[in-house]
């Protein structure tokens, strides 16, 4: 993962879906949007301070740690009010929410290119591998849930997913479609 400048539009576009799922799992759906928004603001604020993030991975881990901590705080203090954008320092806050900014820029962003390329790679997988990966990662089901839906043994599912991921990684590496 490259160090230096972080493309925040691409960053938020990449991690948004995962963050919302995590926040929903760690708290509840009603709070998830607020929690993710708070964590996004926190990572942007942190990015303005010294020392800067030394890599996108560093920023990513900070973002998810903050999200996890905020979710835990909210469980302990359920009445806690979320931070509104108006309360964030203007020098730090973007003109719109990070998600809106990411969405607006999505068509031209690295994330969008990566997304399309990934779709193509997945379509090239064997149907059984493609279905297993979409259910596991795209829909966020557990192996057990997939097994019950499809009637496929757990061990077979695990093998299909690992084989599919290996193919994606191999082809992505050759074509450079999933840059890190």
């Amino acid at each position, binding site marked *: *993962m490259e160090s230096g400048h972080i493309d925040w539009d691409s960053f938020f576009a*990449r991690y948004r879906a995962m963050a919302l*799922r*995590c926040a929903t799992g*760690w708290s509840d759906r009603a709070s998830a949007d607020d929690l993710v928004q708070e964590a996004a603001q926190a990572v942007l604020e942190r990015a303005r301070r010294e020392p800067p993030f030394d890599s996108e991975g560093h920023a990513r881990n900070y973002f998810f740690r903050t999200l996890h901590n905020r979710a835990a705080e909210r469980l302990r203090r359920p009445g806690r009010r979320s931070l509104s954008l108006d309360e964030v320092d203007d020098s730090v806050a973007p003109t719109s929410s990070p998600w809106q900014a990411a969405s607006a820029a999505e068509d031209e962003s690295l994330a969008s290119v990566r*997304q399309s390329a990934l779709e193509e790679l997945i379509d090239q997988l064997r149907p059984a591998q493609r279905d297993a990966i979409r259910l596991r990662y795209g*829909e966020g089901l557990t192996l*057990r849930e997939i097994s*019950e839906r499809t009637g496929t043994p757990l061990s077979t599912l695990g093998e299909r997913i690992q084989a599919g991921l290996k193919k994606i990684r191999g082809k992505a590496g050759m074509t450079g479609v999933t840059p890190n």
Partner: protein
Amino acid sequence: MACNHQRSEQIADFSAGHLRGDLVDNLLDHLDGCEPCSQEFDLAADLATLGAPVAELRPVATPDPVRRRPLLRMVLPAAAAAALLLTIVGRGSDPPVSSLASLEALHYPTSVLRGGDDDLRRAAMERYQAGDFERAAAELGALAQENDQDALAHFYGGLALLQLDRMTDAQTALTAAVAASEGLLRERALWYLANTELALEQGQRAQTTLERLIGLDGEYVLDARAKLDALRPLLDDSPE
């Protein structure tokens, strides 16, 4: 490729929002120093955007008909019964979060279900999602009648009947779902059956159903124990 299979599974669970507590911190700490796992984490993030939008994965739940009903009017002083019943129904009527998410995703991916009854079942469940519980219940009921071993039709038919407040019919469908299913689906069927029995003021039956659920030692075990603990004092005072 993650550095080992267990890490790979943790990353997948994390991306779905299923990882909890110290395991989250442990994984994030690990990512700081493991490039292969860090790359797999990013691939999981990319893949997470490929599924249905989160709003579709976890739609706002339709009102839980079991919770809406006045439950278990036992022969207790009204105020005491109300307090206890609130505990029983309110505290435990939601399934565990991960199960709830799956239950709410009442659509089945087209890539999984192909042809025959699967098409009919999917169409019926789409009616359920759209709030057309009458037709969903009728169509799922027909599927279940055609094939008594169709656990999914029994189960989701039972949920549709619950939405219609047809509690006795729901009990029949969910009982059949329990008999025809296994694994997590069986747990869910038992859970909803227990709630239905409570709504029908069948405390002893609900106790038996909850004990069966606890015996499976699965995802619902803690919720089932909590509900049973709250139910027992009522049963002790009940002439049922």
